[in-house]
Structures are given as structure tokens and as C-alpha cells.
């Protein structure tokens, strides 16, 4: 009984928050319709965009196209970041070898790479995935290094006492102990990848959510720009829900903080 009341209360607050947001938006929109179309107009626009393809690609197609770039990039970023991070966390020597280069490259935002990437790979798929990978490997690598360094020494000692080989210790103790941290890194990689892909798509692209926003800009179609932005928000939110679910499946031993 009490619990239903609590849930109803939570839902109530959520509705209130969304409602207030829409009211504020509408209020601002009716005063400056040229700069900010109202929610209703945006919904209408969304209906239009769902109805017919934009530049011969459906709306879903555009979303999938951005998502595919991000997932591909996160895949490559994991391929690089995970083994390198394990090695850096495990061995001082490897860390001393790699860390200076990494620390120097890390502060350069992926956007700054755009000219070079265009020069090297043109403006096709490769350069977009490459750019996103550049941003996505960073959190994966950093979290892996931290995760490995934070493995409780006593757990390593358990392995040593029972004569686990180094490979066994790495695979059966270090990796699972670091997995929650690694997964948190992948999560960050996906969300920052989602930001970078839009930048990459806005530079030159014929598909993707970034392209939609660009198209809106070229056509002075403010509603289209806003719909594009909303799609980014909603898809980002959905991604984070899916990843949290995946995390629970992958790390069932992790205590949930909620």
C-alpha cells in the first residue's frame, strides 16, 4: 500500500517535471516563433520526418546509421583500450612506456583531429568511425588501468597460494575484479562516442542524426534541428538504460547502490 503510494508520488513528480518543461518551452516559443518552434510544431515535424525519407534514408535509418558508427568505434576502442589498459595496470614497465604518449594525446579533443582525419581518410565512414574511436578509447583505457591497480592484493595472493599461473591470475582474478570499472569505462565511451559522432556527421555526411541537424540548418528549418536534438537526447537515454541492464547481467556480483 505504502509502496504504491511512493511509486505514484515518483511518477507524479516525473510528470510534473516534464509538464513544466513543456509549458516553459511553449511559453518561450509563442514569443519567438521564428527562433523556437513550439513543442506541437516539433511533434508535427517529427511525424513528417517519420512519414517520408530524408535524403532517401528513413528516420530510423538515420538513427541506426549514427548508432552503427558509435558501436563500431566502441568495439575498436575496446579492442585497443582493454588489452593496453590491462598491460599498463599490470606492469610498471609497460605503463612507463605508454603513459607519456597517452597523457600527451589524451587532452587533444577528437574534434581537433578532424582536418588530419579528412586528409588521411577523406570524409567517408572510416574517418567518422576513426574520430569516434579516438574519443572512445580514452575512458576505456583509463578505467581499465585504474580497475587493475585497484584489485585487492589479497585476492592476487589467493591466486599465488594456489599456484595460479600469471595468465590464470590475469584472466580469472584481475579481469573479473576490474570488470565493473572496465564496464563503467565502456559506458562513458558510448555516451561520449554518441557526442563525437554528431560532430563527425555534421562535418560531412549523408546520413545520421548529425546530418539531420545539418540539413535543418541549411534549410532554415528550426523544428528539424530541434527534433534532431531531441532524438539525440532520447537515444542517449535509451542507450544508458540498455547499458545499465547489460551491466547487471555481466556483473551480477556488483552491489547495486540504489
Amino acid at each position: 500500500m505504502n509502496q504504491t503510494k511512493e511509486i505514484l508520488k515518483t511518477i507524479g513528480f516525473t510528470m510534473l517535471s516534464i509538464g513544466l518543461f513543456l509549458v516553459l518551452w511553449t511559453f518561450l516559443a509563442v514569443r519567438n516563433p521564428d527562433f523556437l518552434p513550439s513543442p506541437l510544431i516539433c511533434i508535427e515535424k517529427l511525424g513528417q520526418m517519420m512519414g517520408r525519407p530524408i535524403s532517401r534514408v528513413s528516420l530510423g535509418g538515420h538513427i541506426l546509421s549514427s548508432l552503427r558508427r558509435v558501436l563500431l568505434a566502441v568495439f575498436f576502442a575496446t579492442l585497443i583500450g582493454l588489452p593496453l589498459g590491462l598491460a599498463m595496470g599490470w606492469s610498471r614497465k609497460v605503463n612507463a612506456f605508454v603513459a607519456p604518449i597517452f597523457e600527451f594525446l589524451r587532452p587533444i579533443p577528437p574534434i581537433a583531429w578532424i582536418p588530419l582525419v579528412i586528409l588521411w581518410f577523406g570524409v567517408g565512414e572510416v574517418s567518422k568511425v576513426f574520430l569516434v574511436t579516438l574519443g572512445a578509447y580514452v575512458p576505456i583505457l583509463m578505467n581499465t588501468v585504474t580497475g587493475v591497480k585497484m584489485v585487492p592484493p589479497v585476492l592476487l595472493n589467493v591466486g599465488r597460494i594456489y599456484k595460479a599461473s600469471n595468465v590464470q591470475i590475469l584472466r580469472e582474478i584481475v579481469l573479473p575484479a576490474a570488470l565493473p570499472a572496465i564496464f563503467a569505462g565502456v559506458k562513458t565511451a558510448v555516451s561520449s562516442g554518441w557526442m563525437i559522432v554528431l560532430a563527425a556527421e555534421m562535418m560531412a555526411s549523408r546520413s545520421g542524426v548529425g546530418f539531420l541537424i545539418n540539413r535543418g540548418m541549411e534549410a532554415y528549418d528550426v523544428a528539424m534541428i530541434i527534433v534532431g536534438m531531441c532524438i539525440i537526447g532520447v537515444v542517449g537515454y535509451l542507450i544508458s538504460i540498455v547499458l545499465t541492464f547489460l551491466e547487471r547481467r555481466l556483473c551480477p556480483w556488483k552491489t547495486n547502490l540504489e
Partner: protein
Amino acid sequence: MSDNVKVQVRDLNKSFGSLQVLKDVSFDIGRGEFVCLVGPTGCGKTTFLRLLTKLIEPTSGQILIDGEPADPAKHNLAFVFQEPSAFPWLTVEQNLRYGLEIKKRDKDFIDKQVDSVAKILGLDKCLKAYPHELSVSMEQRVVIGRSFAMNPDLLLMDEPYGQMDIKMRYYLEDQVIQLWKATGSTVLFITHNLEEAVYLAQRILIMTNKPTTIKKIMDVDLPYPRNIADPRFIEIRKEVTDLIKWW
């Protein structure tokens, strides 16, 4: 060297930087003996077990198992660490199997061992649980079970029962004696609880403050199972307590 010596310690010294922890420690532990190690907080009891198992190296001196430096590949060791050491990502059952699986024992044997150990330690109802779902005492029993399942030749226990309530403690004290008798293993058991030491050990090694040496080795010549109300038991306990008052 005699065949009856399991652990041989000769002129063992260990310093961490300028902090000398162990100083010229020498003693033997017989094969199949049950020895308790007592000493003040921070005197180096844990350090001694870490040296014995080669997790760390001595500054000088020797520490041998069966006449050679500890080698987990040859010696069937088990170590119940002072701090929680169940693997959080493994279920209770997987934790219990861990040591045996590393050593590639056959599945039937592992099943049998895990089954019996889980029953002894009262873990048979929560084999599929993860350690974080258990109480501290139960989590510690998982680690004890992981060690017991090995049927180790040399069982090292570092204050294993510190977190247990008194009933569980008494019960587990009897269980470790049973395991020791059944397998003929050598047991080295660290405790702060003097009654526990007198209840368990054939010999009690009493250590001094840092730099630590052996203050005295007490023989406890009482038959098992011991009775804590026996006058002789009380007398020995008092003797140990008096030796320790000097800390």
C-alpha cells in the same frame, strides 16, 4: 634433516625499510603438528605467514617447508587470510571449488569435497549466492571452506574466527581439529584469543613485541577434545596469559 619436520625456520629476519619486524627467529614445526601463534598486535604474525608462503622475501635467514623453499606447485598449501578474501565475482560454490580447480583435481573429487565442506560449514543452503549477499561470518566461512576443501598438507589460518560469534567459534574450533585429525595436515593458526590457542594447539608460540622473537614455546599436553573447565586447562591458560602480560 629429519623427516618429521614440516616447517624449519632459521635465523629469520625481516625489515620493512628501517622497521625491523622479525629478529633472528628460529624454530621447527613438526609434520602433522597443530601450532598456534600468539603475539601482540603488529608484531609480525601475518608477516611470518607471508614469508613462509613466499609472498614476500626475508631480509635474511631461511624458512623451509619439507626442507625446501615454499613452492605452491609442490606443497599443498591453504591460507585463510586475515582480511576478506572470497572472490566477489564467484558464487559460494565456485569459491569453494577454486583451489581444487586451479590444481586440476578431477570433477568427482571436487564435487565430493565441496559437498562435504559446504555441509560442515553450513553453506549448503546458499551455494548459488554471491559473497556480498552473505554476512561477514558466512563470507569468512566460504574462505575457510575453500581451504578445507583442499585437504592441505599445510594449513595456515590468520585469525580466521575473529568475526564469529562465540557459538560458531566453538563449533569451527572443533571442525578444524576434526579436519586436522582426518587429514594429518600441519596447521599453523594465528589467534588473539588465548583460550582458543589453548583449546586448539599442541604447542603455542608466544611472540614478543617488535623487533619480534619467540618469547616462549608452550607445550599443551592435554588430550582432545579439551574441556575449557578442566583445572589443567585453566592453569595453562593462566600461564600463557601471564607470559603475555608483559606486552
